[in-house]
């Protein structure tokens, strides 16, 4: 399987930022161990990139690869939404869901 490329945008070391990092790391280690690249960008240090990427909310996770590019907004505490956003939904409930659709 191909390598996931992810970028997480946060603003400072807030509780919400910490939660997002924690939640994302857990999912990545569980489902994508060794097959992901994660870049964490603090917008307080690099505000210009927020303008370029047109980011309004933080935390914002951008899945750059594989296509399609998708933004997942929030502290990533909703695991199902996170997995769906990362196209990993099938891997968590492998047999059941895919068969139904």
């Amino acid at each position, binding site marked *: 399987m191909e390598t996931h490329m992810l970028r997480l*945008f*946060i*603003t*400072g070391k*807030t509780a*919400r930022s910490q*939660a*997002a990092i924690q*939640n994302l790391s857990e999912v990545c280690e569980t489902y994508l161990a060794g097959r992901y690249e994660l870049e964490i960008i603090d*917008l*307080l240090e690099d*505000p*210009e990139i*927020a*303008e370029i990427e*047109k*980011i*309004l*909310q*933080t*935390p*914002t996770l951008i899945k750059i690869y594989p296509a*399609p*590019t*998708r*933004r*997942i*907004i*929030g*502290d*990533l*505490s*909703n*695991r199902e*939404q*996170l997995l*769906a*956003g990362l196209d990993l939904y099938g891997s968590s409930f492998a047999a059941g869901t895919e068969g139904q659709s």
Partner: protein
Amino acid sequence: MTYATKPQIVKLETGIPGFDLISEGGLPENRTTLVAGTAGSAKTVFACQFLAEGILKHNQAGVFVTFEEAPADMRKNMLGFHWDIAEWEQNGQWQFVDGTPEPGRDTTNSGSYDLGALLVRIEHAVRKVNAKRVSLDSLGAVFNQLHDSATVRRELFRIACCLREMGVTSILTAERSSEYGEISRHGIEEFVADNVITLRNVLDEEKRRRTMEILKFRGTSHQKGEYPFTILPGSGIFGLPLSGIELKQHSSNVRTSSGIAELDKMCGGGFFRDSILLVSGATGTGKTLTVTHFIAGGAARGERSLLFAFEESREQLMRNALGWGIDFDQMEREGKLRVVCQYPEVASVEDHLVRMQRIIDEFRPNRIAVDSLSALERVSSLKGFREFVIGLTSCIKHLEVAGLFTSTTSSLMGGTSITEAHISTITDSIILLRYVEMFGEMRRGLTVLKMRGSMHDKDIREFTIDHTGMHIGKPFRNVGGILAGTPVQLVPDDIKRIGTMFDTKE
């Protein structure tokens, strides 16, 4: 320390024409003002002009945070107001923060978030151009984009607080669902409600009327009520601050000629130089002729006249004047006259007023004539017309020049018009031109109804019109009821009886 020396709320002059008068100095500095209005009420123009005037008039840079109209569209759309945003961006005077949604962007939500990124971008933009002014347009679009109202409300409050800390004066625009109802749709006023302005675009008697109202300025004063404004191509919002105009004009005792020697005599030696006259009469009684004499009388003294004609075309006016032996064409060439002809229907009364004020400012006339004022009645609501008349008269009085307005009465005999009802208390003199029917013949009568600050002739005088203009003759004797529109021939016996009615000596 006395109250006067304690620090009070300072206002930032916006530069938006008219608004600074209504707001008594501008927007409260360093605070956030909510600008609420329905769709099409010019919120974006207001927000944009706030920054544009800052750049043009005060050399203050601005940040525009847009959630609705993409920067590329705004750069194009605002060129119509001669605001070259692209150039200002290059000069480091204008910075966009683009919060518009990107079509086709795939987004999902997982857990709670804040608008920290937006705040970082605004702060960065403000620092980058050293902005003094910030506009956010519009909050409704933020709510539509982000769905989670509670979060957005909390975050906007945080942004408003940060804007204050940054030392910028800011505007937030918000949608309203109705012209007269709750202030804004999402209850935003609850947290940025220090200052609230509402813009309205009301449909009144089939005509659109734009008004602005300052609902509140916490801790400082402002003019109250709705003020009409108009949007001009090439300059943007233009407010008409009616009550902002003070009644402080001087009054002079210098008399000036009406252009008709006999009428001057009737007025006790001519009109006052800075007075406003109203000539009222039915169609064909000689109103335009009176205007023509008024202009010729000015030209004879070397004065410059400005004529706003709303009923006749230029050619018609020239021809008519020539018919009375007065050459308007030559006067124009000599710079003693300027004729501005316009159909009342081409614009709203607010636009007419602004345009007339501009021409007056440019031409600087000694005499101003409007023929006829009542023609404008048909393009506006009653309220709009009243404001127009007040605006125009105060503008003329301010300049201390002579003004002559004509007003057409609806009935041939006697009668008054709506114009008179609105304007009669503002004018200094009123001259009535009336038809008088005698022995099956239409004759014309003239009387000076009112002449502020001077004695005047109380007779109703007959006048005739020929190729040299107006000739005032003898008073109508033995005739009563002319002004009521029902002239009655009085036989000598009646006159004798009426004469003795008030005789107390018996």
